[in-house]
C-alpha cells in the first residue's frame, strides 16, 4: 500500500511540479524575447502565465514516464505498484495528453509583445552595427512597399547610422547614414550578405531586440533539446484526425515502455542513463515527425512524407516498444540464468 501511494504521490508531484516549473521558465523566456533596451515590461502578466501553464502541461505529461521510472529505479517496488505505474501513465498518455495538446488551441499564443526598436543603443544586425537616433512609430507606410508592421499597426521609420563590421574594402559600404527609412528594409539589407549557414544559425528573429539575441541564442545541443520541448506546440498545429491521435498516443506508449529497461544494469546509475537516453531518443525521433530539422533533413523528409495507412511514426513507436520489451526480456532471462 505504501508503495502504491508512493507511486501515485510521485506521479502527481511530477505533473504539478513539472507544470509550474515549465510555466515559470516559459515566462522567463517570454520576458527575454520581449526585452527591448530602454523600455519596460511588467514583471508578472497573468495571460502570459496562463499561456505558460497550457504550454507546460503536455510537456510534463510527456516526461512523466521517464521521471516515474527514475523514481522506481531509486525505490524498487513490487508488482501492485508497477501496475499502478502502468495504469496512471496509460491514462495520462491516452487521455490527458491529447486533451492538453488540444487545449493549446485555446491559448492566445502570446509569446511576446512586439515593440518598436529604441534609440540610443548600438545593435549588431547581420554584418552591420546599427545606431538609431530617431524612431518614428507613427509614420505612414510608403506606397508600394510591404513593411513589417508593429503591433500598433504602423510601419516603423528609423534614422541613424550603421557601420560595416567585416573588413569590406568598398568605401561606400563601410559607413552608411540613413534617414526616415523603414526598419524592416534596413534589417533586410543588414542580412543580405549573410551566407546560408549564418542565416541558419541566426536565432534573432525570435527576439524583439538583437541585444538580447546576441547573448541568449542557445548553443547547438540545447537548440536540439528545444525542438523536443516545443513538440506539443507542433503537434497542436496539426492535431485533427485519428491518425494524428494514434501517432501521439503511440509516442506515449513508447515512453511508457522505457520502464522495463530499469533493470538494464545492476548499477542503478547505468540503468538511469539507459532510461534517459531511450526516452530522449524516442522524443527526438518523434520531434522529427512534427518539425523539419536542419540537423537531420533526410530523416524529417522520410517521416513526414512517406504515404502509409497510418503515419510512419506510429509504426516506429510500436517498433520501439517491441525493442525495449525484448531487451528487457533478454536482461531478465540472463539474470535468472546467472542466479540459477
Amino acid at each position, binding site marked *: 500500500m505504501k508503495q502504491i501511494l508512493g507511486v501515485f504521490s510521485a506521479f502527481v508531484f511530477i505533473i504539478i511540479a513539472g507544470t509550474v516549473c515549465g510555466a515559470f521558465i516559459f515566462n522567463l523566456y517570454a520576458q527575454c524575447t520581449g526585452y527591448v533596451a530602454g523600455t519596460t515590461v511588467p514583471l508578472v502578466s497573468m495571460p502570459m502565465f496562463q499561456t505558460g501553464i497550457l504550454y507546460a502541461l503536455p510537456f510534463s505529461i510527456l516526461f512523466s514516464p521517464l521521471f516515474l521510472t527514475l523514481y522506481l529505479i531509486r525505490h524498487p517496488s513490487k508488482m501492485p505498484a508497477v501496475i499502478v505505474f502502468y495504469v496512471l501513465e496509460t491514462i495520462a498518455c491516452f487521455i490527458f495528453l491529447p486533451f492538453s495538446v488540444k487545449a493549446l488551441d485555446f491559448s492566445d499564443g502570446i509569446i511576446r509583445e512586439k515593440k518598436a526598436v529604441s534609440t540610443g543603443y548600438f545593435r549588431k544586425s547581420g554584418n552591420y552595427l546599427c545606431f538609431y537616433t530617431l524612431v518614428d512609430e507613427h509614420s505612414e507606410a510608403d506606397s508600394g512597399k510591404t513593411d513589417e508592421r508593429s503591433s500598433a499597426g504602423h510601419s516603423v521609420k528609423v534614422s541613424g547610422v550603421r557601420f560595416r563590421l567585416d573588413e569590406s574594402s568598398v568605401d561606400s559600404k563601410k559607413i552608411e547614414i540613413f534617414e526616415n527609412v523603414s526598419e524592416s528594409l534596413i534589417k533586410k539589407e543588414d542580412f543580405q550578405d549573410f551566407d546560408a549557414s549564418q542565416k541558419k544559425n541566426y536565432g534573432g528573429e525570435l527576439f524583439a531586440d538583437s541585444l538580447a539575441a546576441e547573448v541568449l541564442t542557445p548553443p547547438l545541443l540545447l537548440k536540439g533539446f528545444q525542438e523536443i520541448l516545443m513538440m506539443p506546440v507542433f503537434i497542436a498545429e496539426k492535431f485533427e484526425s485519428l491518425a494524428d491521435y494514434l501517432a501521439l498516443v503511440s509516442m506515449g506508449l513508447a515512453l511508457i515502455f522505457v520502464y522495463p529497461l530499469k533493470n538494464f544494469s545492476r548499477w542503478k546509475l547505468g540503468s538511469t*542513463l539507459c532510461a534517459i537516453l531511450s526516452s530522449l531518443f524516442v522524443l527526438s525521433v518523434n520531434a522529427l515527425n512534427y518539425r523539419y530539422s536542419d540537423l537531420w533533413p533526410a530523416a524529417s523528409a522520410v517521416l513526414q512524407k512517406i504515404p502509409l495507412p497510418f503515419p510512419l511514426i506510429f509504426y516506429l513507436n510500436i517498433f520501439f516498444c517491441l525493442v525495449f520489451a525484448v531487451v528487457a526480456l533478454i536482461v531478465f532471462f540472463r539474470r535468472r540464468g546467472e542466479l540459477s
Partner: protein
Amino acid sequence: MKRGKIVTFVCIVFLLLVCFVWSYFYGHLPELLPHSVSYFKFLRGMSAFLKIFPAVLCTAFLVDFSVFFGRNDENSTQRFSAQMFVHYKKIVVTSLFYVFMMSMATLVFLPKVSRAIAYVQRQPDLFAMYFAMAKENKEQGRDLLAYRLMQLAAQINPNSAEVQTLKTKYEIESEHIVDSEALVEIPVEKIPFDEEISSSANCLELLQKAKKAFSEERWLDAHYYASMAVRIANPRDISRSDAEKTAAEAWRKISEIKYSGDFELASVFNRKMEGYNAYIRADYLESYYIFNELKILQRNPDPDVKRYLELSRKNLEKQYFFFDECEDLQRYETVSNLYFVIKHEDKSCEVYFAKGVTDLKKQGNLVRFLRDFSVTYFDGSGTFVKQLSVPYAKMLSVDSSFFNRSQREKWSLDNSETLQGFKYVPYILLSSVNRESNVGISKPAYKYATGREADAEESSYLVVPMNFADFGKIAEASNGAENMDLFSLMSFVRIASKYGYSTEVFNMILQEKILYPLSLLLLLLLFANMAWNYRISGNSLFKFKWTLFIPFFVPLVILFMQTTFFVIRQLCLVITYHAGAEFSLLLAISVEILFLVMLSVLFLSRKE
C-alpha cells in the same frame, strides 16, 4: 575514493587526447595563412578541451561518488544521520576543489584562447585587404601609401614571396617622391610648447633668459626668448621695451653672420633662418622639415639646429602624427570594431567608431591608434549633421585643465555628465604627415547633411568629453560582454548606458560570471544527490564494462549544464530588468543560496 580519483584523472587525460587528435587530424580548417595553421590547431584543441572539461569533471564526480556511496552506505538508516554529515563534508571539499578548476578553465583560460583563435582567423581577411589596397594605391600613384600598406600585408604574411618582392619594389619606388604641395592648417598659439618656458612665465623671466643667452653669444636663443617675452608682455609691462631692444640687438648679431661673406655658411644660415622664422610664426610643420633637412645635411648638426628641430617636433606632434607611427599596428590590434556614443544635454550626440585599435606605450604614456576612425554627428532631433572619417587617428591622454575657456566650450568639457570629476580626456589627432620628407598632410574627409555648408575651419584634432579611463573599458566592451573579465565588467556596468551599451545585458553577463562558481556548486550537490540515489549495490563489484557508460554520460551532462546555465542567464536578465543593476546581484545570490540550502537538506535527509 582513491580509485575514483584515478578514474577522474584518466577521464581528463583521455579528453585532452581526444580533443587534440580531433583538432590536428579531423577538424575542418577555415581559411588561414599557412604559417598560422599549426598554432590554430593547437588553440582549437585547447578550446574544445576547456569547453568540455566541466562536463567531464562533473561526470567523473557523479561516477566516483556513486561507487563511493555504494561502498559506504551503512549507518545511514535514518534521515540526517551522522554518516550523511560525514559524506556531506567530503562532497563539499571535493566540490570546492572541482569548482575552482572548472571556474579557472571557463572564466580565465577559455576567453584568452578564444581571443587568440579570433585573431588568427581574421588574418587572411586583413592580409587580403591590405594587399588589395596597396596595389590600388600604387596604380593611383600614391607610392608611399602603397608601400606602407604592402609593409603591413608583409608583416601579417611574412612567408609570401610575392608580397616580400612587391614590398621591396614599392620601398625603392617610394623613396624618390618629391612633393612641393603647399601646407596649411596652423593652429595659432601664443607661446610654442617649450619645456624651458614654464606655463606661468612672465615677460621679466623670459627677458632674463634672453639676456643670459645674449651674454653667451647664443644669438638665436636670445632673439627667441626676447620675442616670446614681447609676445606675452602686457602693453604696460615695463620689461616690454627692454625685451624689444634685446630682440633687435640679437637680430643685428644674427645678421652679421649672414653677411660675413662665407657662401656655404650663409646658405646654411639662410635655411636656418627660414626654419626659425617658420617656428616663430608657429608653422611647426615647415620649421620641422627645414631643420630636419639641415640635420641630415650637416655631419655634426649645430646646437641651434638640434634644439629647434626638437622644439618643432614637439609642437608638431600636438597637431599631427607621423605616417610611420602606424607601421606594425595592424598586427598588434587588440580591439576590432570599437564604438561608443557621447550624448549631450540637448539630446544631440556623436557616434564614434573605429575598425581597429592598437595600444602603444611611448615614453611611459599610453598612445592609441584608431584605424578607419569616424565620428558622426546628430542634432537634438536625431537628424544627421555631419561626419568625419580618417584612415588612422592617434589618441593621447590629456589633462582637461590644459584647455582654456573657449576650448572647453567648444568641446563641451564643462557640460558633459560623463566628464564630471575626471582629469584626463582623450585627445585625438586626425591629420598625419611624413617624418622625413614633405609629401603632404593626410587629413580627415568630411561629409555634410544636404543643404548644410562645410564649416570654414575644421579642426585637425578632437577632444572627447569623457574620462580617458572609460575608453579602455569601452574597448573591451566592443569585443562583447562575454569576452570581458570580471573586473572590467564590474566597472563597465555602471557606465554602459552612457555610451550606448545595454546595462541589462552587461549586468546579466556579470552576474552569470559571479554566480558561475556558486551555480557549479549547486550542480555538484545535485549530482551528489543523484550519486546517492543511484549508488552501486554494496555487495557488487564495479565491473570494467560499466566504464563504457561514462562517454554516454558526458553529452547528457553537457546538455544538462547548458540548460541550467541558459535558464540562469535568462533569470539574471529578468532580475536586472526589474530590480535594477544595484539589487539584482544580491537577489540572484539569495536565490542561489536558497537552492544550496535546499539541496544540502535534501542530501542530508537521504537514507538507505
